[in-house]
């Protein structure tokens, strides 16, 4: 009996995505990434590796030099308004309107995302789900900690109920408890069938929840591993080796962990 796996349709696709800035800096070089329904793809890489550039191209904040960024099959740079209907975004440092309460911020951004049929109860449920206490609902955002603002950001993404989610360094600056809560939420969303593309420096978090980990260095995807491939591997060592440009050297010695992995 033959066991066949039917793959879900890709919801986020970077196809040969390249970006060269006017000053000649190559931010992305023929990046190929696919994120399907119910998958978390974690992009790892140092500063300037091209993680945020990828997300910015998906959001049409910058135009790619070549290649395509597709959201739900729609070219994000040719039909951005259509493409963005299918994606939610949580930034590294969620800064909502400080004079608005959490409820007011939620109401604005969720309606901006095209959902206008929610009631206050729906907002409350979303905020409770992300771990905010009820006494914070009607507090102004200027009194919120960074962790609380991030929770609001993810609540907005949940309420937008888009099939794809882009997360740009979402756990950066969060304390371990908030980071853990955040990871739990992301995993829940994946389990609900969302396609999540996440850029992060957090190797351990990535290994914990990602279905795929892509390591970017100077705009190139230098390694892409599945959850299964990462099992038993020290991802930190792997990451450091790639980031240090160690690959050339280990290729010569033929004895690096990365090389072993490549062979595996």
């Amino acid at each position, binding site marked *: 009996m033959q066991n066949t796996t039917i793959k879900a349709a890709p919801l986020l696709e970077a196809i040969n995505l390249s970006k060269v800035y006017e000053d000649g800096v190559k931010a992305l070089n023929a990046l190929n990434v696919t994120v399907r329904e119910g998958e978390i793809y974690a992009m790892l890489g140092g500063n300037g590796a091209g993680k945020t550039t990828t997300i*910015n191209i998906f*959001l*049409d*904040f*910058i135009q790619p030099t070549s290649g395509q960024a597709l959201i739900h099959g729609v070219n994000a740079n040719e039909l*951005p*308004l*259509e493409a*963005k*209907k299918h*994606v*939610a*975004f949580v*930034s590294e*440092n*969620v*800064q*909502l*309107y*400080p*004079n*608005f309460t959490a409820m*007011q911020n939620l109401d*604005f*951004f969720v*309606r*901006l*995302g*095209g959902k206008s049929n929610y009631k206050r109860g729906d907002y409350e449920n979303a905020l409770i789900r992300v771990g905010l206490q009820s006494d914070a609902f009607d507090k102004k955002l200027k009194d919120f900690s960074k962790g609380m603002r991030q929770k609001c*950001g993810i609540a*907005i993404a949940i309420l*937008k109920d888009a099939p794809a989610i*882009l997360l740009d360094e979402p756990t950066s600056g969060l304390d371990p408890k908030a980071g853990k809560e955040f990871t739990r939420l992301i995993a829940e969303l994946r389990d609900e069938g969302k396609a999540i593309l996440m850029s992060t420096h957090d190797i351990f978090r990535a290994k914990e929840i990602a279905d795929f980990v892509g390591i970017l260095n100077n705009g190139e995807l230098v390694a892409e591993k599945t959850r299964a491939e990462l099992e038993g591997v020290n991802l930190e060592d792997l990451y450091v080796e790639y980031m240090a440009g160690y690959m050339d050297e280990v290729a010569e010695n033929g004895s690096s962990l990365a090389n072993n992995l490549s062979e595996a």
Partner: protein
Amino acid sequence: MFSLLLQKELKNIITSPKFTATFLVCSVLILISVFVGINEYENAVAQYQANQEIARQDIAQATSWGRVRNLLHREPNPVQIFVSGVHFDVGRVSSISDYNDVKLSRSPNSDETLFAIFRVIDFAFIVQIVLSLFAILFTYDAINGEREQGTLKLAFANSVSRAQYLLAKFSGIWLGLIFPLLIPILLSLLLLLAFNVPLTTGDWMSIVTLIGLSILYITFFMVIGILVSAITRSSSLSFLLLLVIWIGGVLIIPRLGVMAAGQLVPVESVAQIEAKQEAFRKARWDQYSAELTNVWQEREAQMNGMTEDERRAFRDDNEWTWLEEDDASRKLVQADIITNNRRLLEEAQNRKKVQEQLAFIIARISPVASYQLAAMKIAGTDVELKSRYEESMRAYKDDFSEYIQQKEAEGGGHGGFNITFDSEQGLNIDFGRNDQTLDTSDMPQYQTPELSLSATLGASLFDFGFLGFVTVLAFGGSVFAFLRYDLR
């Protein structure tokens, strides 16, 4: 989508401390300025009426046409409550007589020098200085501020069109600033009604037009704020740039325009013109005096060789003719002096007009000057106020002089007294008054020069249009800049 963005913008502004501050400052300043303006206007009206009454009594008490003098006063204008313009700098009174040219003197500021140092705060000043600053405060971080706080990126992660976003932002800020402005304006209009300020339909139209112009002016600064905010990355930089633009536009360029025009087209001062007039007058009277001496010497020469009786008879025969000839010469001298005075004034005025036009052209580099000039024209307190009054007073002076001359002629001679001279009765002078007052019921009445609304609007149309044009241009620039704005 537009409605949602607009609601957010309004909510964001209304909950901000700058909205409260703007509302309070606008309300206090506008209401105080209008209240003080109404008081000032009422005082000016009371003074005007008192002076008119004194002038009427002086005329009524005159017993000789030759002694009738008229004092004309500039009538206060209720729209000056909103735009004082040059009202406090232009004289309020001029005497009308054959011997002096029309000249408005005793300006309010010459009586109250303190106000000349610290100018009156009127509605136009509040709009020009205070509200333009508020417009900048409302808009300097309109775009880059949202980028800095991350909300721009979050908003555009959704299906939001940039043009719609900008339009909603502009509309929200516009409503957020105009709303706190309109309430004190409406209250100040109620103050006008409560104090029974006599406003004609034309005055109301002028006030409404002025409010419209003020809103356009504030809109210009708002759009400039949005434009600068859309071409810079940081709100501190845009604030600095806007402050420089504001200082240059509001405080420097209009003054530079006047200074540059003063250097390029020098105009003689009033004192210099008066010195020239006085020199001509003196020279002309000296010439007249010399000519009269010659004439009398010739007349004496004609009597050479005559006996004393023949001389007396000759004088009797020619005395009246000689008096008429001398009087005609004297009038000719007076006419020459008046013509020369008017010519010198006209030359200076023409040159001043060239200087003014040049100053206004340079000053209009800043739309602030356009607002100021248009507001003053709408209120009738523009730079033409003085010449408008003096021209109408000169026209009246001609009618008045003609009337007096006619009355003098009817009274039979010079200066309101009648001289008869014959060999039987000798010299007889009849002052023709018999201590009775004169009937001045048919004396020409001075009509205050009035500007029709169409003339006012016509005169301010260029500045109105220019302000509208630069506002639209700046808004177009904002749209262009924002469509290319790096949202990251």
